[in-house]
């Protein structure tokens, strides 16, 4: 008996703060944001990594186990996780994180989405009816989501509301300064034409004032065909496009194909926290802006 007590006592320092919120994040960017806003008050699990396509994931037992014990689920929403989250929610069967519960947080509900289709026509490709879900690539959206998420943390864990408020204020201040810094250094990118692999970047492009002249996929989710590629190539040469963007988790071959036949540089961007070795949200945007500026030269 004594030995068991001793063993348990030795285990204690390894555990997070007693009563910490258990957070299940669908994507690494939201896990990173929770770490900023809650620190050691939350124990965070990220369902996907920067090397994975968040549209689809392989089912692992830990996904069900983690969601089952979660107090809060933080996802992008806007149908990004439509391919797996409904099945996972059903299998986890945890009332705290079901749609409509306080423990179910969707970032897309707190920002204005781009590319909302005027008509939801299947003929236009793999279009999300709610709008483009890759909203985290505009840092001003991160600030908006942070505000709502911090309020949600305070609601779920009222005893620590003051801590969340203080961490949030501190984060917002550092984030504002960082945005000013990035915007100043990215000024030369304004008006630069770019080609994208998949339409993952509208928020980043709008923030920095880059212009998307073409996508290598003729419609989202449809592989390129020869006629479309010839058009993109002609356009890239005519507009003297300097770069083609693709995410760390995407196939680099279409962008490289274009780079071999024109002046275009294929640029791999981290896309989310963990991509390109970025450790947090600050490094994610730092690295993104740096890579874009390098390719501009």
């Amino acid at each position, binding site marked *: 008996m004594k030995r068991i007590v001793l063993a348990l006592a030795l285990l204690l320092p390894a555990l997070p703060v007693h009563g910490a919120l258990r957070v299940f994040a669908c994507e690494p960017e939201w896990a990173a944001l929770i770490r900023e806003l809650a620190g050691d008050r939350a124990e965070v699990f990220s369902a996907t990594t920067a090397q994975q396509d968040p549209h689809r994931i392989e089912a692992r037992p830990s996904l069900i186990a983690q969601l089952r014990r979660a107090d809060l689920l933080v996802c992008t929403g806007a149908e990004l996780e439509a391919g797996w989250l409904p099945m996972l929610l059903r*299998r986890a069967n945890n009332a705290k994180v079901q749609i409509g519960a306080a423990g179910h947080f969707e970032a897309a509900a707190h920002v204005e989405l781009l590319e909302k289709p005027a008509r939801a026509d299947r003929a236009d490709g793999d279009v999300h009816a709610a709008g483009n879900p890759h909203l985290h690539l505009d840092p001003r959206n991160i600030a908006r989501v942070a505000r709502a998420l911090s309020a949600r943390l305070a609601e779920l864990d009222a005893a620590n509301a003051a801590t969340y408020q203080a961490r949030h204020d501190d984060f917002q201040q550092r984030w504002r300064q960082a945005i000013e810094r990035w915007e100043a250094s990215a000024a030369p990118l304004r008006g630069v034409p770019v080609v994208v692999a998949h339409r993952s970047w509208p928020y980043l492009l709008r923030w920095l004032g880059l212009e998307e002249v073409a996508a290598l996929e003729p419609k989202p989710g449809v592989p390129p065909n020869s006629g479309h590629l010839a058009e993109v190539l002609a356009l890239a040469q005519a507009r003297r496009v300097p770069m083609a963007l693709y995410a760390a988790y995407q196939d680099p071959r279409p962008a490289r194909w274009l780079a071999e036949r024109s002046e275009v540089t294929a640029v791999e961007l981290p896309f989310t926290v963990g991509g390109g070795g970025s450790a947090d949200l600050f490094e994610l945007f730092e690295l993104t802006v740096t890579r874009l500026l390098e390719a501009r030269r």
Partner: protein
Amino acid sequence: MSAGLEWSIIGPAFLAGLVVLATHVPLGREVLARGIVFIDLAIAQIAALGVIAAYGLGLEDSPWAIQAAAAGAALLGALLMTWTERRWPQLQEALIGTAFVLAASGGLLLLAGSPHGGEHLKDLLAGQILWVSYAEVGAVALVSALLLAARAYLARRASRAGFYLIFAVAVTASVQLVGVYLVFASLIVPALACRGLDTARALPLGFALGALGYGLGLLVSAWRDLPSGPVIVWTLAALALPCGLALRRRPLSPRRARPQGVDARGP
């Protein structure tokens, strides 16, 4: 990490595996005897083609219409294969392979016009065993029981069309439950390990081997937190290999001295 090691998490997946094995162990023996190993890939792909066509016709809102399209296409494919086996028996394997690539690339051509079918196509071919609920296992178990009854009835008549039709429905149902890799492994691997035995011994042994493979695979997947489907494929193969080798070394008794695979129902 062993956070996933709970019956409520891996239990439905294990039962799904047993249901799939119930039809696939006997069917796999027959597939091996006929030398048409890739037929399940072809049938699954043809079922997917039917689903894409249903999307093209605007039927995507009715799950029953999608299931009917998948089963209908698979049954048409099965009838076609029954006919080709009668017409060109030596070419059957090559024709099945060709049917597979035609169905797969035909699907891509149709998708160029209606890409939203692509999502469902991937769901159909890449069923994920961990997402399975008890209700889904129950539904497929019912279908499997009906198929086994039909097979027992048809066995007395050595019906070629019966085999292909039962096979088409079994594969279409199980592929949505566990995905195409596990369907292939459940069909071929236990049959391969027990190919030297007569049916009365091969079926129970194949089923036990399969059940052990699924159970061990799910445990390893929970223990190492790896995707369950691919792990089960590997544990099935890892168990089948020594089993198959041990059975081969045993001298054939007169009862088993017949050419392999020739059953009461042989072609």
